[in-house]
């Protein structure tokens, strides 16, 4: 039997692969489900590593180059592990007008991280988003999935300092 005709084995017996497999199965292992599958991988593992990209490529029979192309085309996918906590600063128009640049500058000065960076201790990652649709509460920041509006530097420090101490 030609090896490629078989569905590849999951890279490990980590339970989270079951979730990934479920997504692929639900979509009939169709190539069209590549983005959906990558979403599931990232939600389950936090990021997309080489092993998972290879596994998804083999399972959906999408060329490696296409998988990598998709994984690096979309902003939400990351090939690097994130910090324990994430701080997503909205850089939409309203937030920009109402002080996002100053917030980002403040974070850089105080915590030494820029967009896409993680603090040296691996605790906090800073990300930016292109408008999270919370324009009426600009500037908006998402702390570990919880959106906060009209964020001030003090508020931000309280959140981030809390994480760093934990």
């Amino acid at each position, binding site marked *: 039997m030609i090896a490629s005709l078989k569905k590849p084995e999951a890279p490990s017996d980590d339970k989270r692969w079951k979730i990934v497999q479920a997504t692929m199965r639900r979509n009939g292992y169709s190539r069209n489900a590549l983005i959906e599958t990558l979403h599931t991988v990232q939600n389950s593992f936090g990021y997309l590593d080489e092993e998972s990209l290879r596994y998804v490529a083999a399972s959906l029979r999408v*060329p*490696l*180059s*296409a998988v990598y192309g998709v994984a690096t085309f979309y902003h939400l996918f990351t090939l690097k592990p994130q910090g324990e906590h994430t701080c997503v600063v909205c850089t939409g128009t309203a937030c920009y007008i109402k002080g996002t640049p100053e917030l980002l500058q403040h974070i850089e000065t105080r915590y030494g991280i820029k967009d896409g960076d993680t603090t040296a201790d691996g605790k906090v990652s800073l990300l930016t988003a292109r408008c999270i649709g919370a324009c009426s509460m600009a500037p908006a920041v998402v702390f570990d999935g919880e959106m906060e509006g009209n964020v001030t530097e003090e508020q931000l420090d309280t959140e981030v300092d809390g994480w760093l101490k934990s």
Partner: protein
Amino acid sequence: MARQKLPPTQTLTMKIDDVDVTAKPGQTIQDVARDHDIEIPGLCYIDGLTIWGACRLCLVEVEGMRKLLAACSTEVAEGMIVHTDTERLRRYRKMVIEMLFAERNHVCSVCVSNGHCDLQAMAVQLGVDHVHLPYMNPDVKVDSSHDRFRLDHNRCILCTRCVRVCGEIEGAATKGVGGRGINARIINDLNMPWGDSQTCTSCGKCVHICPTGALVEKGTAAAEMKKHRSFLPYLTVMRES
């Protein structure tokens, strides 16, 4: 808009650069122009590969259309009046060539493809004697890991001819595009060194279809890399048979 359905035998009449020409339904402006020895510039289009429509050098003016249309991807229609070489188009094409020269580090004098490069030839054809855009000087790499070939991102114009020939003709799909926008790059598999690729068949089609010195054979010095293009006509012939 939905294309007008016409019986396949019907002949269309249209005008390209004030010459009355005939065309078959389903042909593109590019096809018809070539049938009548009218040359329209282009860098990403290759017969036999899917139409990419990205270099924008083959943009033409079609009377009655507000926007410029890419000759490679626009199907002809009865009575179409096309202008392929207006002052405006020449200006835009020059600028597109300049953009390509400014985007990466095309140092022709030391390039192995010097003198055998489509980008260089296009610059001469379109009268580009200097680049008035600021050079962007990106720090891009050279991948020499393959036994026989080299990928030099400095010379790449992202026409994706290599990606298409690799996926559509060779069937290896080793090459792809990673990243996006100004940071987009040609990649091999999961962006690994080309030499480590397990899918590459080393067929070399990507090298010879590449218009510039981005994909070359190793062991060539400046101006020595002549590309073998004699296989290109077969891309379509072999598919049709």
